[in-house]
């Protein structure tokens, strides 16, 4: 089986062999680690320092990229949710759950790195700015997704409601993305495109900064979510197998 065929079968098939470690996943994990390390080297050694903000400006390479990764992963949750509601196959619920778990983690990174950047630049860890508020609501909305799943006993009901919730919850991600472009009162700068008129702490992207940001955004929005979601799906597949084995023993 080719590496790409192996990748697609293991990604979406809960019956895929979980004992073996798919070669494609190992290769993808190693490639992702290397690409991430190269990204760190780029933003330390190549991108250059912002003279107004100092080294803390470099945090934007993670802050922006982790949001891009969260956007992709949580978008995967929407795809998984729709496919589950359509096909009613548990594998799509596993896919959605894995995507949302990874997306939630990346959202936390986005939120925390933003707070750390804000402290020296805005002189505060937190302010109820529209962008920060929507990002906090987004993270809390997805935290509630896990509580919802834990609170429902029946697997079919849990999967159905979680799919609907996962689809609706994505609206918070879209709002977080567009809010700095539609609310003029936000102080959050836009890294790409024109910043709002009240933005504080914005900076000009030099060509080396833009190249580095583009690179890290690709790594964090394609490779990082893909490899984490794939490993997470393997856990769900194994969980499914253990549950089946447990049921089989109880029937005897």
């Amino acid at each position, binding site marked *: 089986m080719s590496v790409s065929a192996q990748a697609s079968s293991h990604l979406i098939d809960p019956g895929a062999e979980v004992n073996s470690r798919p070669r494609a996943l190992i290769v993808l994990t190693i490639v992702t680690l290397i690409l991430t390390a190269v990204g760190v080297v780029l933003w330390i050694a190549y991108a250059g320092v912002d003279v107004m903000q100092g080294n803390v400006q470099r945090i934007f390479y993670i802050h922006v990229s982790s949001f891009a990764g969260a956007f992709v992963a949580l978008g995967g949750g929407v795809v998984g949710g729709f496919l589950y509601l359509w096909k009613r196959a548990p594998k799509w619920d596993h896919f959605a759950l894995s995507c949302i778990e990874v997306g939630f983690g990346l959202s936390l990174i986005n939120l925390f790195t933003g707070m750390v950047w804000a*402290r020296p630049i805005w002189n505060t860890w937190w302010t109820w700015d529209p962008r920060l508020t929507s990002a906090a609501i987004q993270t809390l909305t997805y935290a509630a997704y896990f509580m919802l799943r834990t609170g429902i006993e029946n697997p079919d009901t849990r999967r159905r409601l979680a799919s609907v919730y996962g689809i609706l919850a994505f609206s918070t991600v879209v709002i977080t993305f567009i809010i700095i472009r539609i609310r003029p009162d936000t102080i959050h700068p836009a890294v790409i495109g024109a910043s709002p008129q009240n933005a504080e702490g914005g900076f000009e992207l030099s060509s080396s900064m833009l190249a580095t940001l583009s690179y890290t955004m690709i790594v964090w929005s394609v490779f990082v979510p893909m490899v*984490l979601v794939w*490993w997470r799906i393997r*856990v769900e597949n194994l969980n499914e197998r253990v549950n089946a084995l447990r049921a089989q023993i109880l029937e005897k």
Partner: protein
Amino acid sequence: MQTAQVIPDTTAYLLLGLGVTALVMMAIIGRIWLRWMDLRNDEAVLHDLDV
């Protein structure tokens, strides 16, 4: 006369941000790994019971 611009020293905040990122990534990966090991253990016990 030109005065050299002083770049603010905000390296500590950069390191804090990197630390937080590493912590969250370790939590994501650690959770996957622990759950995996837990399930493998459950599977082995169930196989023993089945035999």
